[in-house]
């Protein structure tokens, strides 16, 4: 049976839907809802002309160059009741990469993100907010595979899933987000060479 509307795919008409967006990263250019930011160096932000190419960040060629796409600090997602889902791929392991929700467009305080760091063996769940930034291990070795990442921000914990399998949990009083957030996709090269990362889907919603 078909749904009469997209609205009713996730909510009955008797329920007020909370903020909910999705992005396919398909088309000639990045949708204007996003802002690209060069945090260090000059990075390239562009749609990828390839099957399942999505959107690609290519860092500058100097070690430490990095950039993000965000909502330019328009923070519509709750720190204690939201979910973000993304399909992401980091093309090399000599990078730092992140995907998730963050208060800052530079991945500062109050965030919950997938964290891939060049000096680490495994992917991490990085959280900050109430207290210093903390990385929680996933036991999943860093690689260049395409993954579905889901991060669920609850009132007292954050859970991260890879391809629908729970890989990491952090609970208060450990650091969890404490302020409203926006989507973020972050890429940083840790060598004197350009590096790339892709995102082909992003969906965020308040719960």
């Amino acid at each position: 049976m078909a749904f009469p509307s997209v609205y009713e795919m996730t909510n009955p008409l008797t329920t007020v839907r909370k903020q909910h967006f999705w992005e396919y990263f398909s088309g000639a250019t990045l949708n204007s809802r996003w802002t690209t930011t060069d945090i260090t160096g000059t990075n390239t932000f562009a749609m990828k002309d390839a099957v399942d190419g999505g959107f690609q960040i290519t860092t500058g060629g100097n070690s430490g160059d990095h950039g993000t796409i965000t909502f330019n600090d328009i923070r519509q997602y709750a720190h204690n009741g939201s979910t973000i889902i993304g399909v992401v791929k980091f093309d090399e392991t000599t990078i730092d990469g992140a995907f998730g929700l963050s208060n800052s467009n530079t991945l500062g305080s109050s965030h919950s993100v997938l964290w891939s760091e060049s000096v680490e063996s495994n992917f991490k769940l990085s959280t900050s907010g109430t207290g210093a930034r903390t990385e929680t291990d996933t036991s999943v070795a860093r690689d260049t595979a395409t993954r579905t990442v889901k991060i669920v921000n609850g009132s007292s914990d954050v859970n991260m899933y890879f391809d629908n399998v729970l890989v990491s949990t952090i609970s208060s009083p450990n650091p969890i987000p404490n302020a409203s957030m926006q989507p973020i996709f972050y890429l940083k090269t840790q060598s004197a060479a350009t590096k790339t990362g892709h995102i082909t889907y992003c969906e965020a919603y308040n719960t």
Partner: protein
Amino acid sequence: MTDSIYDQLNASGTVAKQRVVETFSGDALDTDRWNTVAWAGSPTSGMSNAVNGGYNITCTSSGDGESIGFGSSRTNGIAQYSYNSSAIIFVETVSTKTNISVSSSGLSNEIRPDGAGNNASLHVIKSAFTYFTLRTVGVAGSQTDVSSSVTQDTAEHVVKIENKASSVEHTLDGVLEGISSTNLPVLALQPNFGIQSSVTATVTKNITYCEAYNT
């Protein structure tokens, strides 16, 4: 489980009709799709930096008014939705139920906040009204207002307006509240969200979702 959104919205063997979904989330209004059309004064509008913030249109001076729609001016719209077989679903709120000359949301041939003009089916809020109201506007500007049983307030509501062959239905939070069968639109329509203040005070309309489709 079906693999496609198409199959979740359309019965097997049917051709999908025009549909738009706007989530009003991001750093700016999607101006490839929407245009803001100032009606009077100097209202402001933009994405709201708040949880469930969506998009705001704010009036501060008496008579300020603004709408968003699919065109660059009041009469230069891209009207892709049928006057007699379409629906629009949206989530909206207003910051106050006083000081509003007119808040109008729904499908309209023109982009205007005042609930007037020609050819429209609208969810209307006015300080002069007690209840949320369905307004249909015919070809010559004649209007029919059908009052709902829901008292105007500042809470978020899910509103559905469905344009049928010989009537327009008004549903609030899943409950059918009103039907108009006179002064129905007879020209193609586009989404229209607008507000106009009646006094010098801050009046804001907020929208977090809009979906329009032909049936």
